[in-house]
C-alpha cells in the first residue's frame, strides 16, 4: 500500500498554457535595427547587427542563442547600460537617446532586469531590505513606510518571509538569492522584466521553483517579459514568441511552440537537437549539430552559419540571406522562401 503520488504537484486544471490575451497597446520597449560594434585589437567586433524586436504589454519574448551570440550585449543595450553603434532602443515609442532625465526615470522604473548570477547581483554588504528598496529610493517618490511595506509585499510575492529583509545576502542559498533579485526587480512595479539566464546557475529542483514564480508574474500580474536563454526548453516553458540569434544576427523568429517542433532555420534545428530530452527512447535527430562557433572577429562570408550547416550551398557562402517574413514567422535562410522549403 503506497500513499498517493503527491510528489508530483502538477496543477490539475489547465495543463497546457491557455492562450494569452492578445497584446494590448503599443510596445513598451523596442529595438530598431540595433547594432553594437566593439573596437578591439585587430579591428571591429560586431557583437550585434541589425536586431529588431519589440516587447508589448503582457507578452513574453524569448531570445535564444549560445555564448558569443550577442544576447548579453542586446540585454545591456535594452537596459541602457551601453549605447548602440547603430539603430535605436525605443521606450514607449521614443528613442532612449532623446529622453529627458524625467523620462529616463520613468523608463528605469518600468523596465527592470534580473541577471544570471545572484552572487554578483546582490551587494554583499547591504541588507536585503536596502537591496530591494534601491529602485524605489533612487526616485525618492515613496514614503519610508511605503517603501517598508512594498519590500515585504514583493518578498511575499517571490515566496520569502518578511524576516528575510533584515539579513545579509551571504546568509542565503543561490535559489533564495535569485528570489531576492526578482523581488528587487518587482519593487518599482515594472511593466517589463528583462531576464538574462535567470535560472541557468541554479540546481534543477530550484530552477523549476524560480521558473514557476516568473510564470506566475506573467500570468497573474500581466508582466511582460523578455527572457534571454541558451536553453530552448526553458524558453518554450516561459515564452510565447522566440527570436533565435547566431553571431549577432536574428536567424529565426516565430511562436515558441512552432520553433520547438518544426524549426525552419538549420541552426534552430541544431539547437533543438542539442536540447537533450530526459528520455532515452527519444528518436535520433537528422540534423545533428556540427562544427565550432567561428571567431566573431572574422565571421564567415555570406550566411554566417554556412560553416556548420549540413545544407550549405554555394550561394550561402556568397550572399547573406535577409530575414524574410513567412506564414510561420521570420527566417534568414536561402533554403526557405515565403512559400516554404525549397
Amino acid at each position, binding site marked *: 500500500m503506497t500513499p498517493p503520488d503527491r510528489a508530483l504537484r502538477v496543477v490539475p486544471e489547465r495543463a497546457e498554457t491557455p492562450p494569452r490575451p492578445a497584446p494590448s497597446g503599443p510596445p513598451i520597449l523596442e529595438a530598431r535595427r540595433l547594432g553594437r560594434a566593439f573596437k578591439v585589437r585587430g579591428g571591429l567586433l560586431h557583437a550585434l547587427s541589425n536586431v529588431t524586436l519589440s516587447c508589448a504589454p503582457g507578452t513574453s519574448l524569448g531570445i535564444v542563442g549560445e555564448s558569443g551570440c550577442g544576447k548579453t550585449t542586446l540585454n545591456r543595450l535594452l537596459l541602457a547600460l551601453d549605447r548602440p553603434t547603430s539603430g535605436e532602443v525605443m521606450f514607449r515609442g521614443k528613442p532612449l537617446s532623446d529622453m529627458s532625465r524625467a523620462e529616463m526615470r520613468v523608463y528605469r522604473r518600468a523596465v527592470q532586469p534580473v541577471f544570471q548570477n545572484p552572487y554578483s547581483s546582490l551587494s554583499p554588504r547591504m541588507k536585503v531590505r536596502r537591496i530591494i528598496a534601491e529602485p524605489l529610493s533612487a526616485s525618492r517618490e515613496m514614503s519610508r513606510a511605503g517603501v517598508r511595506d512594498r519590500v515585504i509585499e514583493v518578498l511575499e510575492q517571490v515566496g520569502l518571509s518578511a524576516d528575510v529583509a533584515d539579513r545579509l545576502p551571504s546568509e542565503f542559498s543561490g535559489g533564495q538569492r535569485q528570489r531576492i533579485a526578482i523581488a528587487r526587480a518587482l519593487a*518599482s512595479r515594472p511593466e517589463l522584466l528583462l531576464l538574462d539566464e535567470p535560472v541557468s546557475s541554479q540546481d534543477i529542483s530550484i530552477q523549476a521553483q524560480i521558473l514557476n514564480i516568473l510564470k506566475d508574474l506573467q500570468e497573474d500580474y500581466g508582466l511582460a517579459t523578455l527572457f534571454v536563454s541558451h536553453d530552448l526548453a526553458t524558453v518554450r516553458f516561459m515564452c510565447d514568441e522566440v527570436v533565435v540569434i547566431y553571431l549577432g544576427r536574428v536567424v529565426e523568429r516565430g511562436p515558441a511552440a512552432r520553433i520547438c517542433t518544426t524549426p525552419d532555420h538549420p541552426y534552430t534545428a541544431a539547437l533543438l537537437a542539442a536540447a537533450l530530452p530526459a528520455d532515452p527512447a527519444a528518436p535520433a535527430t537528422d540534423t545533428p549539430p556540427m562544427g565550432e562557433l567561428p571567431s566573431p572577429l572574422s565571421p564567415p562570408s555570406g550566411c554566417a552559419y554556412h560553416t556548420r550547416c549540413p545544407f550549405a550551398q554555394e550561394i550561402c557562402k556568397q550572399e547573406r540571406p535577409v530575414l524574410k517574413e513567412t506564414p510561420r514567422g521570420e527566417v534568414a535562410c536561402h533554403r526557405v522562401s515565403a512559400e516554404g522549403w525549397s
Partner: protein
Amino acid sequence: MTRDLSFKLALGLLVVFVLVALFGPYLLEHDPLRGSLRARLDPPAWAEGGSAEHLLGTDRLGRDVLARIVQGARISLAVCLVVIAIAGSIGTALGTFSGYVGGWVDRVLMRLVDLALSLPVILLALLFAAVVGPSFLNIVIVISMVLWSQYARMSRGETLRVKNEDYVDLARTSGLGHVAIIFRHVLPNIAPSLIVVATLQVGVVIVLEASLSFLGVGVPPPNPSWGGMVAEGRSYIVTAWWVSALPGIAIVLVVMAVNVVGDALTDRINPGLRGRGA
C-alpha cells in the same frame, strides 16, 4: 593554533601600545622633558647601580627613559593616525575615481602613483627639513606624499573588480547616479582591503618616522620620538646601552605586532590579497 596564539599576542601588544600612548603620560610621575643632571645615564632598575626611581634608567640629560618611551608612543601613534588619515583619504579618493572612470584619467593617475612610489622618502625629508626646518608637520607631509599611492593602487584595483559586479549595473538600471554608486556600492565593498593596507602601514609609518627622527629631520628635540631617542643614545651605546636599545626594542615589538595582525586580517578578509599592500 600557534598562528592564532601569535595573532592574539600581537593584538594584545597593539592594544597596550595604544593604551600607553593615550593614558601613559598621565600615570607617570617623571616629566619626559625635564632631566636631572645628578641622575645622568642611570642604568635600569634591574642592572647594577639601577634604582626603582628610574625603572628603565635615564639618558644623558638625566631624563627618565620610561617616561620618554611612553611619550614617544604618543608621538608615533599621532603620526600614524594623521598620516593614515591624510594618505588614506587622498589615495582612496584618487584610486576609486581612477578605477571607476577609467580611460585616460586612469592612465594619468596611475603614472602619478608610479611617480609617488619612486620618490626617495628620506632624501625628500632631508630636502624639506633643509628648507622649512624639522617639524611634526614636515614628517607627516613627507610620509603622506609617498604612502597615498598604496591606497590609490589598492582602491583602484578593488574598484575595477567591484565595478564589474552585477549589483553596480543593477544600481545603474535603478537610476542611481555615479556618486551614489561610488558611496553606496563601491566604497563599502573595497573598505576591507583598505583597512588591511592601513593596518600594515602602521608599521611602515612608525619605521619611517623613526628613521627621519633618527636623521634629525623628524620630530624636533627635545620632544621624545623613538627614532630620535635611538639617535641620541648611539654615542653611549657601549656605556649606556639602554638609552638606544630600549626605544629600539619598542619599535621592533610594535612593528612586528602590526605586521602579524595585518597579515591575519588579510587572510581573514581577503585571502587572495596576501603579500600585497604595504
